[in-house]
């Protein structure tokens, strides 16, 4: 319950963020990243599936996967990370499936967002809250 390595890493990440901010060049916010990706077009909720654990077993390596039938590109964002941009997956027109998975580090409890650009130019999205917890008191 106490002083987990995870917690120390989180604290560490928070600390380095605070120190780094004044000298860092501006990190794009989630909203800015989405606007760049969509060109300002409307984004529909649903239509794709984002799978992530409700509670991360290890915040340093959280498995996430997307299933976005008919998508040409899928942007994944960790909205609460110092740098929200996680990955963009691209699917060719002959793709047999539109599934991708990766593992990401989450600094704290936050929403993970997937935005898919569909073949017809429209945008679909899915969101999942992943909790990063100290843990240790269940039973």
């Amino acid at each position, binding site marked *: *319950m*106490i*002083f*987990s*390595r995870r917690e120390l890493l989180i604290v560490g990440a928070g600390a380095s963020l605070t120190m780094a901010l004044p000298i860092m060049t501006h990190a794009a916010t989630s909203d800015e990243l989405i606007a760049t990706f969509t060109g300002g077009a409307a984004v529909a909720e649903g239509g794709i*599936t984002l*799978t992530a*654990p*409700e*509670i*991360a*077993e*290890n915040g340093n390596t959280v*498995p996430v996967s997307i299933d976005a039938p008919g998508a040409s590109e899928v942007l994944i964002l960790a909205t609460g990370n110092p740098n929200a941009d996680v990955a963009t997956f691209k699917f060719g027109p002959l793709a047999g499936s539109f599934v991708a*998975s990766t593992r990401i580090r989450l600094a704290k*409890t936050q929403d993970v967002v997937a935005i898919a650009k569909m073949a017809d130019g429209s945008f679909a999205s899915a969101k999942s*809250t992943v*909790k990063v*917890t*100290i*843990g*240790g*008191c*269940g*039973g």
Partner: protein
Amino acid sequence: MISRRDFLQATVAASALLGASGFGNWARLAAQQALTQDQLLQFAPTGNVTLIHITDIHAQLKPVWFREPEINLGVGAVNGLPPHVTGADFLKLFNLTPGTPEAYALSHTDFEALAQAYGRMGGLDRVATVINSIRAERPEALLLDGGDTWQGSYTCLKTNAQDMVNVMNALKPDAMTSHWEFTLGIDRVTEIVEGLAFPFLGANIYDAEWNEPAYEPYKMFERGGVQIAVIGQAFPYMPIANPGWMFPGLSFGVREERMAEVVAEVRDAGAELVVLLSHNGFDVDRKLASQIEGIDVILTGHTHDALPEPVMVGKTMLIASGSNGKFVTRLDLDVQGGAVKGFSHKLIPIFSDVIAPDPEVAALIDAERAPYEAELTEILGTTDSTLYRRGNFNGTWDDLICNALIEEREADIALSPGFRWGPSLLPGQPITREDLFNATAMTYPNAYRSEMTGEFLHVILEDVADNLFNPDPYYQQGGDMVRVGGMGYRIDVSKPQGSRITDMTVLRTGEAVDPAKTYVVSGWASVNEATEGPPIWDVVEAYIKRKGTIQIDPNQSVQVTGA
């Protein structure tokens, strides 16, 4: 059967307590003398399938006292719904009469007096009698064990759970699922599972590296001409709530999509009845039932709730069979054409003075305990207070543990995890080593002593509170609030994480906890590897022996709002 002598004693105890409590339906006690084993087993059989469910035994081979919670809050959509109803409200909701055996078994109301009247509950030898009786009537009945079976007692700890494995094998379960089992370490779990004559199910247990299923997800049975799929679901938050380093290759989680896939798979394979043997916890199962079609019955576990009636969520029936061997559920189902057409249900209370022990299993239990008899029975002290664990914010067992941590480890503040296992003791009883281990026996018991800032203590309390009071059950881990000694606080359970906990106060001085100040904190059951300190039972044993008699003052250090 409860003897007349017991009832006369009970009447004395009851009248002695009447003045103190001022309420209670004591006149009923005398009317209960007719309680018999036949009555407890009386059942209106129906249909073609019988399920027997037992869960969260926590290694309690022998009958125990077990006080049900007085405070068990539900937040969000489940506020005021079972199992978040306690005491008199619970009795009213289920039409139970105060003072009856059922009221004693299912609520904390008048616990001490009724415990004298109706005695200890559970004991796997009595459970065996109930199972044998059901099987005599229904030879094809399925016995399903919801897990938390291989942890929670002195002998279980000393034998690496071999005592529980041997006794459970004698009961011949048809399947089980798991939680604390994994705190034996993955090697020991693998060793035991390889020798089991029944499947160890967990659809949500994955290989962490390859993200592939690591255990059998389900087992198909043909019983009474019905194809039955029993799907297992282990505790979803194993590596978070318990030490992940003990089973490093495994990943868990609710995995709702996975469950939907498995349900579809078993239906495609011809299942006419789908049973989920779950260790999710009641609220998680309630949500799962509302999200996934096609599960007929969820045998719930983990949160230790005992409900005398099934809870329906759409077409899914949720069964809650209690803990520590207190109850066995019998569920008869009439399955026709792939649908449940009718059912008969009974939560059978295991009154240990009424149900005769099965001689074979009783002998087996005695044999398992015999090598440890001297240690088990050593008296460490006496308690003047009821010692119990259940309750969202505190219980007297943890008050005792926190008091011991503060004095023995010279700490400002003590933390004790919000476990829900651990039976109760009545006022005036000796505290034996067995009793102490029933409240502490586990494989990561070290009592640490470290320094924490007030700010970090606040983070801990907020974190644990969100595991209990997040309005979305999928974000709850079960268990109760971490118990705190030496410090009081206010909690608004309706607030979001980060703003539930206020007014943290050092009880000794009455001063507010300073976020920047460092406090000496002692606690136990850390999930971190290589935690240093003596095992918690040594700390508490030394304290009890030094005090001789234990008296726990009413705990008023947690002020709760928003419920």
